[in-house]
């Protein structure tokens, strides 16, 4: 923990308009113009109530709460049916899906390696083949959990000066979007086989990796982003501005990076139907492999994807306001509740500035009332 605390001081978390959400009734002197008495100073109940309220329930933890599946098998009629379901899911569907996945990988590598090595000179052709192969592989992944995905709106085309932003529930978001269009994505570096795939394959479609705990990485990513959106031949850029997986019922603050590039921002809203399985990847509890296994042993992954209308920075609008506007659109379309927290608070402590703001309000109130 000590390591994290020391770096958190260096990282300035984005906190657009959080002040708006700070409860103002935490300050005693709402009905201010009263004289200050000892009782008023001793009465710390508003601050204590706020603290206790946060202990009992808080909007941030709610964002990352996995929903446990509703049991429906505790009934003499349903139980045999449920057992049959388990046998089908684990005994038939899962092996079939695993086989599909393996077959997909074999075909993929059979195409990818030769293309990667033999076509060194013909960059254009090589990239086209690689892009198609990645799209194919993502379709295989989607098939391996019987993904029932409904896409609404125009399919993204390859052109410069636009960036796609989507809400983030799991790494499978990326797979679902990638099977339609080979996006270049900005992603956290992962260890294990995911990291291997990131390095070998996804780099060929122009994906950019970073480590969210590295301050240096942020600058490098910002520069790479700017270069990428200018390139004519580059795959469209996809960013998950929440920076972390949220449980698809809430949305945390958007990082402003994607909104500062001076190009069109195309929002994508993704909503999962939790009828068969909760698609939220709780990375602190589950490895990605286990997450995939859970999806592969469920009946289906049902989801809706909406490609929304491109948005531009309006005159006089700051990047943060722009980000909030786009977040509103996505939240409204996917039916998500908005919370004023930065998703990185999963990894860092909140900035002392928020506490200072509360102290400032309190101190000003005391001083004002003392003068009377």
């Amino acid at each position: 923990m000590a390591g994290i605390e020391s770096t958190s001081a260096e990282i300035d978390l984005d906190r657009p308009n959080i002040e708006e959400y700070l409860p103002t009734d935490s300050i005693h002197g709402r009905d201010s113009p009263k004289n200050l008495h000892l009782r008023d100073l001793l009465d710390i109940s508003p601050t204590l109530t706020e603290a206790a309220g946060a202990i009992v329930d808080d909007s941030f933890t709610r964002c990352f709460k996995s929903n446990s599946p509703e049991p429906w098998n505790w009934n003499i009629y349903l139980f045999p049916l449920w057992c049959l379901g388990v046998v089908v899911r684990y005994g038939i569907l899962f092996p079939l899906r695993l086989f599909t996945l393996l077959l997909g990988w074999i075909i993929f590598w059979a195409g990818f390696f030769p293309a990667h090595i033999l076509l060194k000179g013909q960059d254009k052709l090589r990239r086209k083949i690689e892009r198609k192969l990645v799209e194919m592989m993502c379709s295989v992944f989607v098939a391996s959990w019987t993904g029932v995905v409904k896409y609404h709106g125009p399919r993204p085309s390859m052109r410069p000066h636009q960036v796609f932003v989507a809400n983030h529930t799991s790494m499978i978001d990326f797979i679902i979007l990638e099977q339609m269009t080979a996006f270049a994505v900005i992603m956290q570096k992962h260890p294990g086989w995911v990291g291997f795939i990131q390095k070998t394959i996804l780099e060929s479609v122009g994906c950019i990796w970073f480590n969210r705990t590295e301050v240096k990485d942020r600058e490098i990513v910002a520069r790479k982003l700017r270069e990428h959106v200018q390139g004519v031949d580059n795959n469209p850029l996809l960013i998950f501005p929440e920076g972390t997986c949220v449980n698809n019922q809430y949305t945390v603050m958007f990082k402003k990076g994607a909104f500062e590039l001076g190009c069109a921002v195309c929002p994508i809203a993704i909503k999962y139907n939790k009828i068969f399985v909760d698609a939220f990847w709780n990375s602190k509890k589950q490895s990605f492999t286990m997450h995939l296994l859970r999806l592969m042993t469920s009946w289906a992954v049902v989801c809706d994807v909406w490609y929304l209308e491109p948005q531009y920075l309006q005159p006089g609008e700051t990047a943060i306001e722009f980000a909030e506007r786009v977040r509103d659109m996505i939240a409204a379309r996917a039916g998500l509740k908005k919370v004023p927290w930065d998703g990185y608070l999963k990894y860092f402590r909140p900035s002392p500035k928020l506490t200072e703001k509360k102290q400032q309000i309190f101190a000003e109130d005391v001083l004002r009332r003392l003068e009377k």
Partner: protein
Amino acid sequence: MGNSSSMLTQYDIEEVQEHCNHAFSQQEIVSLYNRFCQLDRSSGGFVSADEFMSVPEFAVNPLAQRLLRMVDGLNFKEFVAFLSAFSPRTTPRQKIEFIFKVYDLDCNGKATFDDILSILRDLTGSFMSEQQRQKVLAHVFEEAGYSPDSSLGLSDFIKIFGNSELKMEVEVPID
């Protein structure tokens, strides 16, 4: 984690209710238990200071550090007892006792001028100078008929708060 609420038996719930003077209903205790398990990420049966601080809304509270000294390492029964001060069923007197305990961190039964000053310091941070704080406090002490050297006991607190309304309630979400 699974269905953690099923792990609490009637006996357990009644025991916890007893411990907190029936400040919470059985349903509320079950909700609080689920919340407790959620906060107790290490599943050690208690919530550490670090785990409390992982709730940003708590961590930004100006009194967080002070409260941490009271809540660090609470087991479930103590956790509920701590929160019982915020139940609508708790009497104003018990709420005042709770506030007094926050002031009287060294548990010597009195809140001195310095104790109160240090809370004021937490609440105002760098936005008031130490001199200003002392002046304010001395002023209100004097106005209430106490000298700055005197320390306040629980009975003083009860007298000062009098019958005025004390809004200190937290609703336990039941889902």
